[in-house]
């Protein structure tokens, strides 16, 4: 029930989460992606279109923190992969977000 409620809330165009790092980590959670693929994926599942500056600013920070790493590729488009530390950070953030969602829904029902 709660999972259904969460999925209904995390709907493209409805979520207003503005932290691009979480969005990028979530996009990379199901596989390696390059910059344009990340941008399109986020646009699909979150309804947010990241600008090129925002996207590569976030990619730079994630790479410096060790949460993603570049995958060797000969193409111009550089794919990225989420690391174990990035996965752990993403889980923590999603758990926190889920707690916020559950608490908010419960209080809305009780109100």
């Amino acid at each position, binding site marked *: 029930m709660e999972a259904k409620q969460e999925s209904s809330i995390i709907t493209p165009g409805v979520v207003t989460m503005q932290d691009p790092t979480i969005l990028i980590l979530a996009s990379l959670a199901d596989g390696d992606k390059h*910059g*344009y693929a990340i941008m399109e994926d986020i646009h699909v599942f979150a309804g947010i279109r990241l600008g090129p*500056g925002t*996207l*590569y*600013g976030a*990619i*730079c920070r994630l790479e410096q923190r060790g949460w993603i790493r570049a995958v060797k590729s000969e193409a111009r*488009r*550089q794919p990225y992969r989420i690391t174990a530390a990035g996965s752990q950070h993403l889980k923590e953030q999603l758990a926190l977000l889920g707690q916020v969602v559950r608490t908010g829904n419960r209080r809305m029902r009780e109100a």
Partner: protein
Amino acid sequence: MRTLIRWAARLYPPAWRNRYAAEFDALLDDISPSFGDVCDVLGDVLRVRANTSIDACLMLAPVPPINLRLPVFASLTVHAVMITIVLFAVWGHVTTMPLHIVAPLPPPAPEPPPQVTDGRVFPNALTLYSSLPLKIPAQGGALPVYVADGVGINFLSLPDIGATYRQGNAEWRVWPGQALESFIVRRVLPEYPRGSNAHGAVSVFVEYLITRGGSVKVLRTSGPPPFAGAAQLAIGRWVYQPLEYENRPCEVVSRVEVRFDSELARSGFSP
């Protein structure tokens, strides 16, 4: 717009461009950039530049240990030498410095009452008490109080008002006549000397003493004899209440001007 973004991307730091320029350029080929993307890139350029500057400022410059120790050692040595020299220089003064204990000053003695030492004062204790000119100019300060039958009495402004004169046990204070008005018991106005053939106004200045009992003793007069005698005779009959100063009986000296006017005397003027 794409070209504009590429120009904006050149504002990134060299390290950023070396790492991300190629894939960033590929991304620009994949998307249809808008003006918002230009602003987005410029904003990220500013953020990266600011973080780079802050990091550069916070990063300590690598200093070899020998370069770090030498100035510190030299500074400590110089300071120690200077402190030692100062201690040697002042130690003798500090240990032999006398300790002065300053006793509190006694309270100032009360000022003695003014003692008149002028030889001209009290040349005759019974008749004169001061060297002040008895005849005081009439301009200003004269208050006409009583006028009847051509005779008026003016209270004079006294230049030595409030002064105390002493000789032996005698102590006289100078009070103005108007201040004595509330203590007067009996006043006798002088009579115009009918036998006089003077014309116009004649002034007689009278200096008198109020004794401790309240009676009046004329000390001296100034003026033509018939008028001065009339003034002395009348004022000598004045009576005051016993006067006190600082809760002690005192004798008081005052002065008045008695003005005789022949015209008013003949017309019988009486206000």
